[in-house]
């Protein structure tokens, strides 16, 4: 009888793993949710708990505290953490194009070159990624701050709807669609200002783990990342659209299905730009550029050589 209670877990029992996302459950994490719901982690003999993120969550801190084994963080978080000695490594880069873009009205003059930003009222979140990106763009354009008006944005879009602000930062694949539809309903079609088109490739969500986890459990890391990326590939495969939307709807009940479908399409274009592209590919040049931007803006005290913590070998 005692042996029943004291029996050691079977050798192939699923390892408990916490995976902390960067933000709430929405289209930006469809692959993470798909891998969970559709058994990719189970097939890899992993018991993964996918946890939603939020403004008060920081996956890198949770990795260090042992509260999570894997997480999602943006490049600026990784670089800041490295600057302060955090033992974090990058396993895969989910977004190839940063979804953080600016929305503006089609009736306004188009932004064809950076100099076209001159004189506009530009929404930024002070302290956020969008501030860093916009300041880089303005520096590239040779525009001094008095030549534009920076407006501190919050969750309330009223200043944009009221035309107090000309261009407003949004996540292209989620808020961008919701606001775009609202504007369209008011006969105000929109377009997007994409920093990447002007050479600023600030890296967004990437999968991270701790250096200790990579050193001590490389097999688990490999199984996890392969299962996760298989989930992403399946979720963004147009043949699986219905299943991906079903998965998404389980977690994001507030967004209508047709909006989720549009969000999924845009998400696909940001994560898997071509059909042959391997999801998770790490764009080392973009990471180096992100570090350089943060150095220039004095957001980190010293170079962190971010390329040394990138581990592209796990992307199959």
């Amino acid at each position, binding site marked *: 009888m005692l042996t029943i209670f004291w029996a050691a877990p079977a050798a192939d029992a699923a390892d408990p793993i916490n995976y902390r996302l960067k933000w709430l459950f929405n289209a930006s994490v469809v692959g993470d949710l798909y891998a969970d719901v559709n058994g990719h982690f189970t097939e890899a003999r992993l018991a993964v708990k996918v946890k939603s993120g939020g403004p008060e969550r920081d996956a*890198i801190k949770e990795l260090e505290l042992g509260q999570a084994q894997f997480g999602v963080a943006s490049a600026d978080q990784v670089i800041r953490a490295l600057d302060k000695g955090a033992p974090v490594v990058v396993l895969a880069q989910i977004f190839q194009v940063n979804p953080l873009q600016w929305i503006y009205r089609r009736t306004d003059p188009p932004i064809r070159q950076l100099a076209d930003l001159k004189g506009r009222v530009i929404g930024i979140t*002070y*302290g956020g990624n969008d501030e860093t990106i916009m300041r880089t763009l303005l520096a590239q354009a040779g525009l001094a701050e008095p030549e534009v008006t920076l407006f501190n944005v919050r969750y309330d879009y009223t200043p944009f709807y009221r035309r107090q602000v000309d261009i407003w930062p949004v996540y292209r694949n989620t808020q961008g669609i919701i606001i775009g539809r609202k504007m369209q309903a008011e006969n105000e079609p929109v377009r997007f200002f994409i920093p990447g088109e002007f050479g600023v490739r600030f890296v967004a969500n990437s999968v991270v783990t701790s250096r200790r986890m990579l050193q001590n459990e490389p097999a688990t890391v490999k199984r996890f990342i392969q299962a996760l990326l298989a989930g992403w590939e399946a979720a963004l495969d147009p043949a699986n659209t219905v299943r991906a939307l079903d998965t998404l709807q389980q977690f994001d009940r507030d967004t209508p299905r047709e909006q989720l479908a549009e969000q999924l399409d845009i998400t696909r274009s940001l994560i898997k730009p071509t059909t042959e592209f391997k999801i998770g590919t790490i764009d080392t040049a973009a990471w180096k550029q992100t570090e350089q931007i943060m150095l220039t803006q004095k957001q980190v005290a010293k170079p962190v050589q971010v390329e040394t913590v990138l581990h592209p070998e796990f992307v199959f």
Partner: protein
Amino acid sequence: MLLRRIYQFLIIYFLGLAILLGVKYALRLSNYVIPDPLLLGLTFQSEALRYFKDVLDTMSIAIIGQVLSICLAVLIGILGRQTTWFGSFVKVAAYNVQAYPIVALAPIIFILLGDGFLSRLLIAAMICYFPLLLSVLGIMAEPIGDIEHFYRITGRMRWQLEVKIRAFENLSKLTTVVAGSATLAMAGTIVAEFIAANAGIGYSIRIALYQSDLGKILIALFLIGISLSVYQGLLEWAGAIIRKTWESR
């Protein structure tokens, strides 16, 4: 009184900091999770002056909000002290307004009033007024039996005298409540700034949080705590002076 407030705060702050540092070194955490004393010192050097100005900005709003709350609480307390239908109606209305969480009301306030001075003031006042009201109602509704009886049987009792008697007999309680409500007014202003304002220490904390910079947050907490301790000490000192003046009359 003032000095005691300050050193008591310093004991609490540095005790908390010591626990954090203990966790840092016990678990070998990086400066990203918990900054070491050297990094804290450097952060203090670079940010303290700017943050101190932010704290003063926040505190000025908090003080105005607190004064408004005190006026409102005293007014409603005086009206609500009566055991009439109107008195009970005022109490119910005052309680119900407080039932709505401020985070749910804040977006409406910011849409109506923008993200400037007025919104911060209103939220600060809303957060600190209710505990003040409860105390004022409690004090004003409680008769001081023997004294009030004397004035009643001699026919000299008026409502102003009733309020004065009750306030005087409970002056130390009122001083404690007013000093305590300063904390709430400050917390209310910081919440407002954190949610949507463009200035103040709450706004700076939000930016530090975006950048996962615990060092900056710890410096901000230090400056908030020390400023609040000084303010509360001054309020208690003012309360003591008022009491002495009344007693000498």
